[in-house]
């Protein structure tokens, strides 16, 4: 079982690095299928951009940490920030797509996307922040 850890400054311009690392790692032996790589790239982007936005300014010298575990049957990635934490079950639910009010909402799509793109996701309070753990199985895309 191989592991990769990446620590980045809490800055949005590092998101492209994160996407590259995670997708390249997941394309190694045995590779995730292409469509799952797309899911992974987007889910990781969403989780990491939330982590970077949540990271406390006082903690700007501490990194956002991305840890990947490549297992035979699945790819797992944890993203850890130094933010104030949140309750994922208490988020505003977006109006239905056929509700004209849907157009009022330009944000709030990140967590729903993570939920649909991954096979499993947990949001754990960590001392001083949050750990988002996402799992993508190699087989049977969830979508």
């Amino acid at each position: 079982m191989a592991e990769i850890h990446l620590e980045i400054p809490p800055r949005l311009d590092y998101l492209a690095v994160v996407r590259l690392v995670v997708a390249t790692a997941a394309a190694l032996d045995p590779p995730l299928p292409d469509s799952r790589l797309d899911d992974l790239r987007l889910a990781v982007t969403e989780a990491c951009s939330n982590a970077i936005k949540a990271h406390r300014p006082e903690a700007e010298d501490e990194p956002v940490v991305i840890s990947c575990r490549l297992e035979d049957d699945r790819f797992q990635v944890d993203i850890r920030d130094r933010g104030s934490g949140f309750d994922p079950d208490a988020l505003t639910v977006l109006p239905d797509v056929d509700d004209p009010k849907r157009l009022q909402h330009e944000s709030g799509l990140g967590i729903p996307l993570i939920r649909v793109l991954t096979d499993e996701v947990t949001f754990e309070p960590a001392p001083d922040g949050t750990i988002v753990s996402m799992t993508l199985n190699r087989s049977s895309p969830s979508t």
Partner: protein
Amino acid sequence: MELEISDSDAAVDTHGWTVLTATGEIDVAAAPGLREQLVALIEGGSNELVVDLEGVDFIDSTGLGVLVGAVRRARSAEGDVRLVCTNSRLLKVFDVTGLDEVFTIVESVDDAVTVAADQG
């Protein structure tokens, strides 16, 4: 992400629609630039807009949010924003978010400027 706006000399007749061609990645870093451009166009009176996404290979929730906001602004000015997209990666993202039912998504700029308004 790169942006390019059609000018009136363009080879293709766009029936008065303005075509904005985006290429690259529309992520949280690029989205503000796209939003600024779309808002400027709509506030400048170009509320019939085509956003050509054929050269875009990645879009995140921030990029989707910008498109939602542009559609709202254009429609409330009796216009629309139509998306040209055949890339299955992006179509999947529109699909899983349900936004394929909110956006008008077509296969070419030509389709975008000729489909009837009520198909949106």
